[in-house]
């Protein structure tokens, strides 16, 4: 089934950019109309039981609504649209669009509601109902955003028919190649690390809890280590089969020759197929060392799963793996 790329892109633009802009614009208009009947300083932060514990000038609320409400979907749109224009598609992009719309509903709803509640200098309590309702509205509209976009699963295509490199009996081979994470992956992974670190700092500043700070800090450090560890891999094909080892030694993905059913060159899309860059798990729990888009090795294993590694000169590697597997079973 051919994928209607134009429809995928136009619906994604509608869900991730146009609808969020309309929602945010409406929220900002309501907030600005409410400003004259609001006190100069309003509650903008609440503790867990709904008691206000942070206050800001009223005009900052519409500004923040516009910045966050447009910024979050804008970044998600920017990340995805370049790949979509290259012809990629799939569930990960559909999800990005839905999340962008969901966030663009959740934040403005919550901020507008909490502001309107304070009209006339009323009590600044924030009922849990408001938070829960905004959250549900975000999830519900996000789900609609998912459904509005066409279902266009990504099916990777083998780019050429596999062949076996002729090997003499007893001949020994070694093929190695390094692969480094692409700029797109570096930007996204770097942003994730920065955001996690920022959250950890915010937790440290805003809460008095040492445990919460340690927890958030540990997550940020762990994430940074994982991103660094999976930014460069050494790929090797030899008598041991296929091995992809991180430049720092861990993690490592290996397929012994005995487990190889077939090897082929595929055109890989990290976002569409694996939902991101690095060591990822794709459909069916099949691991992939996907550091960039484009050519890669895909090995099918005897257990029914496959292993994908994006690397240059994949044709030589797969031809060797095919020959090694054939020699073993001969």
């Amino acid at each position, binding site marked *: 089934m051919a994928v209607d790329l134009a429809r995928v892109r136009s619906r994604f633009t509608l869900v991730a950019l146009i609808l969020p802009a309309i929602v945010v614009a409406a929220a900002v208009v309501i907030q600005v109309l409410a400003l004259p009947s609001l006190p100069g300083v309003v509650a903008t932060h609440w503790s867990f039981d709904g008691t206000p514990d942070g206050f800001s000038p009223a005009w900052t609320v519409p500004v923040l609504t516009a910045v966050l409400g447009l910024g979050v979907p804008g970044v998600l749109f920017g990340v995805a649209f370049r790949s979509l224009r290259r012809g990629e598609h799939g569930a990960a992009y559909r999800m990005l669009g839905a999340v962008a719309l969901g966030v663009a509903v959740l934040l403005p709803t919550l901020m507008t509601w909490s502001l309107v509640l304070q009209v006339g200098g009323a009590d600044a309590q924030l009922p849990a109902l408001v938070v829960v309702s905004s959250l549900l509205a975000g999830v519900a509209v996000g789900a609609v955003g998912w459904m509005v976009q066409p279902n266009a699963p990504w099916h990777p295509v083998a780019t050429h028919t596999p062949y076996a490199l002729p090997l003499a009996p007893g001949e020994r081979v*070694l093929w190695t190649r390094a692969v480094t994470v692409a700029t797109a992956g570096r930007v996204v992974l770097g942003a994730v690390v920065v955001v996690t670190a920022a959250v950890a700092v915010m937790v440290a500043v805003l809460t008095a809890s040492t445990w919460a700070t340690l927890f958030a800090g540990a997550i940020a450090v762990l994430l940074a280590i994982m991103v660094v560890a999976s930014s460069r891999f050494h790929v090797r094909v030899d008598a041991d089969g296929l091995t992809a080892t991180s430049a720092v030694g861990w993690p490592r993905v290996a397929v012994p020759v005995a487990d190889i059913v077939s090897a082929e060159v595929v055109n890989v899309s990290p976002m569409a197929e694996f939902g991101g860059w690095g060591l990822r798990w794709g459909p069916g729990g099949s691991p992939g060392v996907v550091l960039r888009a484009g050519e890669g090795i895909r090995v099918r294993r005897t257990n029914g799963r496959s292993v994908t590694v994006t690397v240059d000169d994949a044709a030589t590697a797969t031809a060797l793996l095919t020959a090694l597997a054939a020699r073993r079973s001969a």
Partner: protein
Amino acid sequence: MLIRIDPGSPEPLFAQVTRAVRAEIASGRIAVGERLPSAREIAQSLQINLHTVLHAYQDLRDEGLIELRRGRGAVVVADAAALSGLRDDIDALVAKAAAAGVSADTLSALVKEAAHGR
């Protein structure tokens, strides 16, 4: 990088490794500044002696193709670029020799003689 060795061949193993790496550099498949796999890794993968690989690496260093640095391993140096620049001329010469019925051994002997005569 691709290295193929055949223990059944009369050519010594170190010479086979040298030839394979030299061919990879000449073809441009290994770029200038790129680091080669460690001698230990190659020895383990190909199930040959570590000293065999070190022998090959020393020969490549003597040819001025790679640099061996303690702790940094073997790195392809700028001079190798000249080698990959010869590629097209070599392909043309080989094709010409084959068309004229000149054997590979004769051709390499002629090239060697010409190179030494300068």
